């Protein structure tokens, strides 16, 4: 089985190891820079991007404001179309529902479409405990599963692996899971994709149960939408007799028409394409076409806690495009694993501590995994003000106490006092300038040492700005 995020160290500890891994940093830099430029081009093609972004934000906000109504509506519509709707308050409930549904079919293996929700709840591990083998079919998820690894990116879970590493993983591990890799497999991406095609083909053709998430579910019609590239999604959504979709309650959109906004925003933000190769839309079950049984599992698992926070609830607008990861200087250097959850990068830094709370050291450290540069907000297709939520969550973490946070609060109080007393500030600045040769590069002392361990102190100028201004402008 793939690993688990549980019990991982706090972000700064995990990130320290990651930034020393030069292969990892090279892989991430190459991949994120490739997609950044392409995304900017795809977005620039649409003159009304700003209006689409605003409409996407408003649709999501309005949906969240009336979420109970829309959830009841989607439940009615899916049921009327022949589907069965289940509700899961947390990960355990969702895992139990899915496991029982699979057991009821008598099957011991399932094929899976890449799904953030099932990553979040640890479904594969729960299925394995029940003796059910879950085959990941997305190429990157396959790389992660075969490598007994963890996902490190929302869109491309194996972004931390380069082609050579992927070749080795396929060559060494495919045979343990089914059809072995072809002899003499090269590291050409086309050959690697072909190896995945051959490996998974037999699994698709015999699959009786498919498990997916969904990008959107339309309340008025009960339609579910899965956006993908490879065709593994179509395989899992079409060929099995039973389909189980685990979907976060925030994925609902009110109307069919709303898709005209999100199907423009998502592919361009995500893979920098005008449209992704395949999108499947289905409503309940259809005689003679696709699965005969369809189960929708509506998942809360911390979403209602997030919804209750007036600043933090905007994180529920997220459509999982991963543009914020690709532009983030912290993500680029620290990698996805350091965030310790299925949701890495800037969105993970605000989503994970809200979904899971901030009781653990890891989750409490996530709101600090940012330089607040704001690039994530700029690219977000639904205008989530990630820096605003980060600062808000930092306040909450600081309020819950802990040594480092008490020191930070003391420092902030001192700074506030200084800024309120200009004479003291001026005197302090002059003193600092005149003694700058004596300043250390690192500061000693509890709390402060940790702060400067990962930062160089800025050099002070020869004279305070206010003195320079006075001299030159009077």
């Amino acid at each position, binding site marked *: 089985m793939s690993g688990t995020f549980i019990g991982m160290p706090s972000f700064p500890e995990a990130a320290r190891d990651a930034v020393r891994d030069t292969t990892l940093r090279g892989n991430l830099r190459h*991949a994120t820079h*490739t997609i950044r430029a392409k995304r900017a081009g795809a977005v620039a093609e649409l003159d009304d991007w700003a*209006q689409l972004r605003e409409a996407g934000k408003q649709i999501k906000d*309005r949906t969240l404001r009336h979420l109970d109504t829309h959830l009841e509506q989607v439940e009615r519509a899916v049921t009327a179309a022949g589907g069965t709707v289940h*509700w899961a308050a947390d990960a355990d409930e969702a895992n139990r529902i899915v496991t029982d549904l699979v057991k009821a079919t008598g099957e011991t293996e399932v094929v899976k479409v890449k799904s953030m929700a099932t990553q979040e709840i640890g479904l594969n591990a729960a299925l394995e405990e029940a003796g059910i083998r879950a085959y990941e079919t997305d190429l990157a998820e396959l790389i992660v599963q075969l490598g007994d690894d963890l996902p490190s990116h929302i869109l491309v879970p194996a972004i931390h692996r380069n082609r050579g590493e992927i070749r080795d993983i396929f060559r060494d591990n495919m045979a343990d899971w089914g059809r072995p890799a072809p002899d003499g497999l090269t590291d050409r991406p086309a050959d690697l994709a072909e190896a*995945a095609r051959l490996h998974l083909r037999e699994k698709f053709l015999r699959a009786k149960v498919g498990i997916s998430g969904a990008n959107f579910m339309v309340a008025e019609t009960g*339609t579910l939408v899965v956006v993908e590239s490879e065709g593994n999604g179509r395989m899992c959504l079409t060929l099995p007799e039973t389909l189980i979709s685990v979907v976060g309650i925030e994925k609902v959109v009110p109307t069919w028409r709303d898709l005209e906004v999100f199907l423009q925003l998502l592919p361009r933000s995500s893979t920098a394409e005008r*449209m992704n190769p395949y999108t499947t839309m289905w409503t309940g079950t259809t005689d003679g076409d696709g699965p005969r049984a369809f189960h929708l599992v509506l998942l809360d698992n911390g979403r209602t806690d997030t919804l209750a926070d007036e600043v933090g609830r905007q994180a529920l607008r997220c459509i999982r495009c991963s543009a914020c990861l690709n532009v983030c200087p912290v993500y680029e250097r620290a990698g996805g694993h350091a965030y310790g959850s299925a949701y890495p990068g800037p969105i993970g830094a605000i989503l994970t501590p809200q979904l899971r709370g901030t009781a653990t050291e890891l989750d409490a450290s996530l709101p600090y995994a940012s330089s607040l540069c704001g690039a994530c907000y700029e690219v977000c297709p639904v205008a989530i003000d990630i820096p605003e939520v980060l600062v808000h969550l930092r306040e909450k973490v600081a309020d819950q106490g802990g040594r480092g946070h008490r020191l930070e609060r003391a420092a902030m109080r001192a700074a506030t006092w200084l800024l309120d007393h200009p004479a003291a500030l001026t005197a302090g600045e002059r003193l600092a300038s005149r003694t700058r040769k004596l300043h250390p590069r690192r500061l000693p002392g509890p709390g402060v040492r940790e702060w400067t361990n990962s930062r160089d102190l800025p050099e002070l100028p020869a004279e305070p700005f206010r003195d320079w201004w006075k001299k030159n402008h009077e």
Partner: protein
Amino acid sequence: MTSASSARDRVLGRVRRALADAPEAPEVTRDYLVSHTPDDPATVLDLLHENLADYRAGVHRSTRQHLPALIGELLTGHGARTVVVPPGLPGDWLAGSDARLRHDDGHLTPAELDSADAVVTGCALAVAETGTVVLDAGPGQGRRALTLIPDLHICVVDVAGQVVASLPQALPRLDPTRPTTWISGPSATSDIELDRVEGVHGPRTLEVVLVVE
């Protein structure tokens, strides 16, 4: 059902408590464009052609009269000897091909579909700005598996009645109760170093024929 209905009540109850003090959200402003393309059929068709080709679909223009010959050439050119035929496909479309035809009566198994080389279908709609053909399991398209498993998909677009410029023009013309597949180029992946590679699980070759009168 006791525990299931109580989970439902718990989730909905939490949603309502979370929103108890939330301010009303503004109505959605839809001031984005209905289309990004001049309202001229020839321009829209050229854009569709260009965008399909940009994502590595083969694109061909044909008259209705020449269509059977073109489909025959495409099948032969790809070495396709067995062709899946969805119910309702116009009878003459395959008149120019000597490939073996497998008419789907709903009973072809995935393994049987896997042994076929190609499938020929119509479509419900094509979207120029995104280079997309949309199938909705209507006549001449068949169930979703037919266009998924064979490695070559030849899709015929009736330019006069099936081409729209944009997504806002496409959605009102589709029926949400039908299973719908949006296809933009052949199967692809960006999973290796975020670089696009064509050809994974879906048909590795997509040939789109634009039929103009």
